[in-house]
């Protein structure tokens, strides 16, 4: 019914990418990931804890999920490049979710350093999925720089405000020749459906599931919304009209 989502050399059936941060427990995280149907999950790179035996990977089957490391918490191109190198060195993935932030208060991306880091990492052979704002010009420049996938924010990270500027996402989609995945700001299922109905190739989210009262139920809702939005897009919606149009025949009473 639908073609697979192609990211670099990999193909996925699920179009929902889910983060692994901020769940009440790792056990709930594992159940929510399972319920979401996600095939790609994001992780962050941090200092290993000394004398601690519990690992995120006690709860994640790396044969089942494609691991997408992020550069979250980096505020310059150089920092993000370092983290990408470290992530690749773990041997789990050559994909990187590139995230270079502008400041701690807004967590909005720094477009200049994001572009700079994209160029370097693409040259080094990384599969770069790049987080950016919903600015169509920046998105285009990132695509031109060789990003495999451009991931505009619907709204600020963790804000749950959904897609604030549908028109910008539409403009990005109009000219993009690579997958566009909405990343960040998703609050609930209808936000995911909206992104997919606009024609995005996928949605990446974390807090919307992890901080829901019931993360596992929300994971199911997000999965269904992603599928619903995708099929609505493929099916082609009716145009919006100002006036009514009867559904039943108007003659032969």
């Amino acid at each position, binding site marked *: 019914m639908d073609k697979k989502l192609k990211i670099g050399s990999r193909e996925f059936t699920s179009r929902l990418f889910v983060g692994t941060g901020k769940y009440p427990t790792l056990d709930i995280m594992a159940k929510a990931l399972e319920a979401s149907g996600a095939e790609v999950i994001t992780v962050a790179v941090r200092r*290993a804890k*000394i004398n601690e035996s519990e690992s995120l990977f006690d709860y994640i089957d790396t044969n089942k999920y494609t691991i997408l490391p992020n550069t979250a918490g980096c505020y310059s191109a150089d920092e993000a490049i370092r983290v990408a190198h470290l992530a690749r060195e773990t041997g789990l993935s050559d994909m990187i979710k590139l995230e270079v932030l502008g400041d701690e208060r807004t967590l909005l991306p720094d477009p200049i350093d994001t572009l700079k880091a994209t160029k370097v990492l693409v040259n080094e052979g990384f599969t770069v999925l790049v987080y950016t704002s919903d600015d169509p010009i920046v998105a285009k420049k990132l695509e031109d720089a060789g990003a495999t996938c451009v991931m505009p924010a619907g709204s600020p990270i963790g804000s749950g405000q959904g897609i604030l500027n549908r028109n910008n996402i539409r403009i990005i989609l109009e000219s993009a020749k690579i997958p566009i995945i909405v990343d960040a700001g998703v609050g609930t299922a209808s936000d995911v459906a909206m992104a997919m109905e606009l024609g995005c190739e996928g949605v990446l989210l974390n807090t919307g599931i992890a901080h829901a009262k019931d993360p596992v139920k929300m994971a199911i809702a997000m999965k269904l919304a992603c599928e619903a939005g995708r099929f609505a897009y493929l099916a082609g919606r009716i145009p919006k009209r100002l006036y009514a149009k009867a559904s039943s025949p108007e003659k032969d009473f």
Partner: protein
Amino acid sequence: MRITLNGEIKECPAGTTIEKLLELYTIDKHRTAVELNAQIIPRKEHSSRIVKDTDVLEVVTFVGGG
């Protein structure tokens, strides 16, 4: 001798390899990456590379994130 491991001053015997150091401080050697004095040391060198006094090591792994 003393090294700095993830920002903490730690002791280890002379001749300790990176691999042994990770064992000594119970850091899972899988899914980690190691920087020695700000240079990434490829995994295959962990069993042979010996740390020296005053070396600064950063060992990273994956944690939950979005």
